[in-house]
């Protein structure tokens, strides 16, 4: 039984090889159908996985409040020497901690740009004034030394923690720990190095930033709340107390109520809309929903392209049946049963569509690979997309091969024999 099937397949392959170009053109539709399905799914999967990853890293229990310049200020800041005042307030942190239930911690973040000098190297740093809670919330590994602790903040110690990336740029090593780094005329003792975030830009640590984490109390004393930016002759001043407030809810169920309470609180104490609330959990849910929509769209495109491929196969097989009418007549006269004729033609289409599917998989693996190489976009080829598209292309072969095969078998042998 098995050897007979193999023989039939062998026969089908041989027949198809008699018309190499035609067979190739027939499967081309399926090749690109399957190839594009896999490629699209892998790009989609890569993009959504990256987005989900990024959001997950923000922590699903977290809520991030960020300072944004309100729209009125944006317009006014074109005026010279205007000082724009916006952002989150120190009081906001206290209010959150004291009045909103289910908040595990509220971590303030204050950002300042200053030059840092370590040894003979001078680089612009992004100073992040924060508390010990930041390190508990972000959960990044230590490379060397220690993180900031409560005592540093309380005692206003002039200490700083660098990131792995920043340390590399500053030519700092584990031996740098204990040495002093000069930031904007002040000396800070380097007490630790933490890991940089992997991958692309993140909200807390945009890529390619050399971060120095210092106690927020020290940051406020030494650098104040006013930032001056000089851009081509004009000066821009802004007064921002806190750039971010990271809030961790005690569990995933309380994220939403906490977010609502935060919003109500901020609305009450801020006249302008100079803050923004982002909830990773909501983003995550949204991203998942987007992914679902995306998959449905891709699925429809895939279905259409495979349908087109299938119609191509049916078209060619019908032509082939007409062309081989006489052969069918001969086989029938010799004693082939209807279903043997059906299986002969069906095997040919299934072989065609399977080969098409396999070539399509090769194309589908190649395209995402090229995309990743040339555009740096992440792509993920999942096993299920391979199995799915091969399965679909094979069933396309069966579905669209059935009609021509049945038609071939339905021919009257006498008429078929007379066919020229």
């Amino acid at each position, binding site marked *: 039984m098995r050897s*007979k099937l193999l*023989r039939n397949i062998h026969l089908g392959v041989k*027949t198809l090889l*008699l018309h190499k170009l035609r067979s190739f053109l027939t499967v081309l539709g399926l090749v690109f159908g399957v190839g594009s399905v896999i490629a699209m799914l892998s790009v989609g999967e890569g993009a959504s996985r990256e987005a989900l990853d990024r959001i997950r890293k923000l922590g699903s229990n977290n809520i991030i409040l960020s300072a944004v310049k309100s729209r009125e200020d944006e317009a006014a800041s074109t005026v010279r020497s205007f000082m724009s005042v916006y952002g989150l307030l120190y009081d906001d942190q206290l209010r959150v901690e004291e009045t909103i239930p289910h908040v595990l911690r509220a971590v303030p973040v204050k950002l300042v740009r200053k030059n840092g000098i370590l040894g003979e190297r001078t680089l612009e740093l992004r100073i992040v004034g924060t508390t010990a809670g930041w390190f508990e919330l972000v959960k990044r590994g230590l490379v060397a030394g220690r993180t900031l602790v409560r005592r540093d903040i309380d005692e206003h110690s002039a200490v700083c923690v660098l990131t792995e990336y920043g340390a590399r740029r500053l030519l700092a090593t584990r031996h740098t720990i204990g040495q002093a780094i000069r930031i904007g005329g002040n000396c800070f003792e380097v007490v630790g190095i933490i890991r940089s975030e992997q991958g692309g830009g993140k909200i807390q640590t945009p890529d390619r930033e050399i971060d120095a984490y210092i106690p927020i109390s020290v940051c406020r004393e030494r650098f104040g709340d006013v930032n001056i930016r000089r851009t081509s002759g004009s000066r821009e001043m802004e007064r921002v107390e806190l750039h971010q407030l990271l809030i961790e809810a005690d569990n995933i169920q309380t994220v939403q109520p906490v977010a609502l309470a935060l919003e109500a609180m901020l609305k009450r104490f801020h006249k302008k809309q100079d803050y923004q609330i982002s909830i990773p959990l909501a983003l995550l849910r949204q991203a998942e929903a987007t992914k679902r929509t995306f998959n449905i769209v891709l699925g429809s495109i895939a279905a259409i392209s495979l349908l087109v491929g299938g119609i191509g196969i049916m078209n060619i097989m019908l032509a082939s049946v007409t062309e081989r009418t*006489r*052969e069918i*007549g*001969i*086989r*029938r*006269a*010799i*004693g*082939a*049963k*209807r279903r*043997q004729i059906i299986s002969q033609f069906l095997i040919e289409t299934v072989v065609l569509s399977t080969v098409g599917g396999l070539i399509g998989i090769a194309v589908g693996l190649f395209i995402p690979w090229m995309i990743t190489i040339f555009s740096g976009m992440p792509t993920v080829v999942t096993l299920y997309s391979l199995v799915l598209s091969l399965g679909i292309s094979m069933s396309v072969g069966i579905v669209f091969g059935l009609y021509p095969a049945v038609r071939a078998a339905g021919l009257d*042998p*006498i008429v078929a*024999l007379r066919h020229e």
Partner: protein
Amino acid sequence: MSDLAKPDPSAAAVSTSQALVDLEDVCKTYLMGTEEVHALAGVSVSFEKGGFWAVMGPSGSGKSTLLNLLGCLDRPTSGRYLLNGADVSLLDDDELSQLRLRELGFIFQSFNLIMQLTVQENIELPLYYLGWEASKSAARARELADMVTLGDRLRHKPAELSGGQQQRVAIARALANDPWVLLADEPTGNLDSSTGEQIMDLLCELNSQGKTVILVTHEEHVASYAKRRLHLLDGVIDRIEGEDDAK
């Protein structure tokens, strides 16, 4: 006694003669547009085992229709057709195929080889449908090709052979399943007279080995090879000539 109580005409037919193929008042009617065409209008004849028959008649006399019926490619509109005792008119498509596969061998005017297949694969075709093992059917194909003196052409395609050689391949194919009956439709029609003679000699030899041969032709000298000649005219038997003018 039970035979008397329930008369079985087919059993009776077999018992009365050595008939292998038995037609009883067979009619075949085609519908051409709205007009009925009686291709066969009541033909009764028995072809005995080991016979060599030529069916003759002008075109339109029903020769091809008769051969199609004999070859189980078609079913009679009315009447009975018994092949080796089995009533063909009662069989379904699969059973007809099975009958063609096991009992019959076809030889056509235009050879009807499959051009994409080699000589060997063409000869093996019936064996393939009979489900023979590859090695066994290859041996059988070689044996048959040797018999028709084409043992050295097994790997050739039909297009590389002459007409006479192609017809010999077709005969080898018709013999592959070791049939009772060889049905030949103008087997020499596409051949020149000397190759035609070779083919007819081959058919005579096969007949002498015990195969029943029924051939359709309109050429007198081809029909002269046959032991019996059945003349058709307008769908009915005009006359039967032969060695012992039976029937």
